[in-house]
């Protein structure tokens, strides 16, 4: 089955990438963007979903600064 994991900076943790992109947008001709956050997308083909949560916690995200969510997509 196919699993999709989204990893993003935790609430309150600095997101320098998102900040820099947001800051640059108006000058680049893209208006109307209020916030930008950048994280990671991980897509995996797994045999079972049993261990996905443990993988997210131990390898795919850094729980110190990131949070994750995951879902089975097919």
């Amino acid at each position, binding site marked *: 089955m196919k699993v999709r994991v989204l990893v993003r900076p935790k609430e309150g943790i600095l997101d*320098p*990438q998102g900040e*820099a*992109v947001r800051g*640059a947008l108006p*000058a*680049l*001709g893209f208006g109307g963007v209020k916030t930008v956050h*950048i994280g990671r997308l991980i897509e995996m083909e797994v045999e079972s979903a049993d261990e996905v949560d443990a993988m997210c916690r131990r390898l795919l995200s850094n729980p110190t600064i990131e949070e994750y969510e995951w879902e089975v997509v097919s």
Partner: protein
Amino acid sequence: MRIGVTVFPGSNCDRDALYAVERMGAEPVGLWHAEADLKGVDAVIVPGGFSYGDYLRPGAIARFAGVMGPLEEFANEGGPVLGVCNGFQVLCEAHLLPGALLQNTHMRFVCDRVRVRVETTGTPWTAGGEVGEELTLPVAHNEGNYFADAETLARLEDEDRVVLRYVENPNGSANDIAGVCSEGRNVVGVMPHPERVSDPALGSDEGLKILRSVLVGAGV
């Protein structure tokens, strides 16, 4: 000859490039990213660094900076442009050069000196060299792994547009490509840093062979 060096937020080899231009015997001109003005320079170097932090993708944001409009015009009119490292990435993102630079296959930043071979002298930035000549140039990058689809690669090879080729590939680049040029041959992008070896005080000035070519081409 006046040579411009673009300065994006996060460029960090801009001062080195300006210094190297002086060493070449040309007049260095800083080109601030926000100003849509090339100040009448005869050639442009897009230097290395981490423009806009390399956030999103290296070069992705810089490509939209104010200075890029006139730079694209200049390039399309045949003006000599050299992108070094992050500059190469910017020129690819701006579609002035084909392909893209992916993360090094070993996934580490690599700072080293590598041997490269000059593959063509048919560009303003290699006109002073010899085909087959080997140079030892510094590299320092995390995304230097040159990628283009098979068709593009075949075209680059056919049209003699691979400018430098690694003798030992430090990053996984397709066909060991270290530098390519545009269809018009005036725009060149290279991952190694010629400006870092442009002063005998640092042990080598082999990079001047590349940089000074543009003076040769211009008949200086």
